[in-house]
């Protein structure tokens, strides 16, 4: 479904992603892990069009994404749940959800939009009752865990085919993380394709089908989640090379 080939991009003159490739099949869960600064978020931003790529290729369902801006890619079905949630704090919870439905509205005729958005809202409230409870509250008033729920719900409002989640467990209490992942399991069961970025490897690798380990903008390891999890090189990503001297 998603094919990234030798992607290179960065900020100013610094390369944050230096020749990374990955392949995500429909209906699977793909994890991207690595330490801080490895380039994971940059990779996500490049895939969803928030950041232009310098070289390489990204194709989605066979079509090239080159030159398409983020709103166009959202319309195609690629939605990002950004790092740090990035809830619009001046908008209410319900408005955040409505804004998330923009790509959905763009895919359909005017006559159907209202109904589709309403249905989407109902579904979101069913899945996350707390959001219904606080629908009129400003987005910024929610707790961290609630905001993560809102961010995911918002992303789902667009009815994506590919959902990118950038560090969904960031800053959340362990119990809340369980809830979030429980929900992600439901999504997977429903057939949604997920790409998950996490700094903490364990959780993501348990959940994913395939994984990519990044370090300093490059691919350190890739393969099935099992392969990556049991690889002796995994700790290298986070700790640096183990040499005779340090043993």
């Amino acid at each position, binding site marked *: 479904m998603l094919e990234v080939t030798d992607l290179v991009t960065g900020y100013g003159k610094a390369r944050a992603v230096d020749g990374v490739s990955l392949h995500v099949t429909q209906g699977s869960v793909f994890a991207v892990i690595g330490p801080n600064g490895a380039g994971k978020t940059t990779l996500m931003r490049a895939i*969803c*069009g*928030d950041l232009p790529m310098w070289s390489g290729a990204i194709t989605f369902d066979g079509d090239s994404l080159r030159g398409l*801006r*983020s*709103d166009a890619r*959202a*319309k195609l079905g690629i*939605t*990002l749940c*950004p790092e740090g949630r*990035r809830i*619009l*704090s*001046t*908008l209410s919870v319900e*408005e955040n959800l*409505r*804004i*998330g439905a*923009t*790509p959905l*509205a*763009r895919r359909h005729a005017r006559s159907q939009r209202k109904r589709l958005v309403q249905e989407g809202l109902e579904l979101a409230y069913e899945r996350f009752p707390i959001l219904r409870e606080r629908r009129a509250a400003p987005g910024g008033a929610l707790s961290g865990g609630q905001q993560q729920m809102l961010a995911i719900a*918002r992303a789902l409002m*667009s009815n994506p085919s590919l959902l990118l989640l950038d560090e969904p467990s960031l800053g959340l209490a362990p119990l809340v993380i369980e809830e979030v992942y429980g929900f992600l399991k439901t999504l997977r069961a429903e057939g949604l394709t997920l790409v998950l970025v996490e700094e903490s490897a364990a959780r993501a690798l348990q959940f994913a089908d395939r994984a990519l380990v990044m370090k300093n903008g490059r691919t350190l390891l890739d393969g099935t989640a099992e392969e990556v999890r049991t690889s002796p090189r995994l700790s290298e990503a986070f700790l640096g090379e183990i040499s005779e001297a340090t043993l």
Partner: protein
Amino acid sequence: MTAFFQSLFDALSAGSTYVMLALGITLLFGVMGLVNFAYGDLIVWCGYLMALLAGWHVNAVVGIAAVVALATVLSVGMGETVFRPFRKAPPLTLLLASIGVSLVLQAAIRIIFGEGFRPVPTPTFLGNTVVVGGVRMSVLALVSLGTAAVVVAGLYVLLQHTTIGLQMRAYAEDSDVAGLMGVRRERILTAAFALSGVIAGIVAMLWFAKIGTVQPSGDLNPTIKAFIAIVIGGLGSVRGAVIGGLLLGLFESALGAYLPAGLLPYVEGFAFLLIILVLIARPQGVAGKTVELSR
């Protein structure tokens, strides 16, 4: 008692123009941080159109539509051509660029129409005065007040209850996230410039109906006062623009009414001075949400 209502009416009608100007400017500031110095020049262009139309004896409704259309076209035009590359520039750079646009617009007027005043005839009925309960109200002031109320209400409805309004608010808060959510960003900017232009056209008609003449350099004061209004009210906030505009109108009326005679010539100076005092007390303005250092 009547004196109080008279003062209140005067304050509100003075404030109504400022409120509309402030709203027109705040729209652009909210979405891209642009304090459009050329806003006053949009109004001057409308004035010249009004002078021309009067000479051609054009029907009033057509005339109004034409003026609003001109302001909108000019506003969108400058948005698409000049300000497009500056989309992510810091506010000060944008202000300077808008000064450039202002120079160009003024120069164009000079080249086409030459220096000197042109008369802009005012429909006579606007000059009449109505007296209600002892309060004297000029028809123009009433129209001004009413128009401002409509503009404020209209803008409120647009921003709070329509899709495009929602998208504009989302974009104003975080344009990157708005893009990720599928919002077409160029459309938002165009819409903001267009709305801003429409308001400019409306203000122009009220303005020139009152003043009666137009010249290339226009009057700087209303533009500056609109800027001040949004700064006191709080940069970037629509509510702030309304509050700021009303406060400014209030300041001016109060000063005009209660200042000792010897100091009356300095009314404008005092108004500005009070504003500066407000800013010392509260640099982010009355309804401001951004700390001044981050914009």
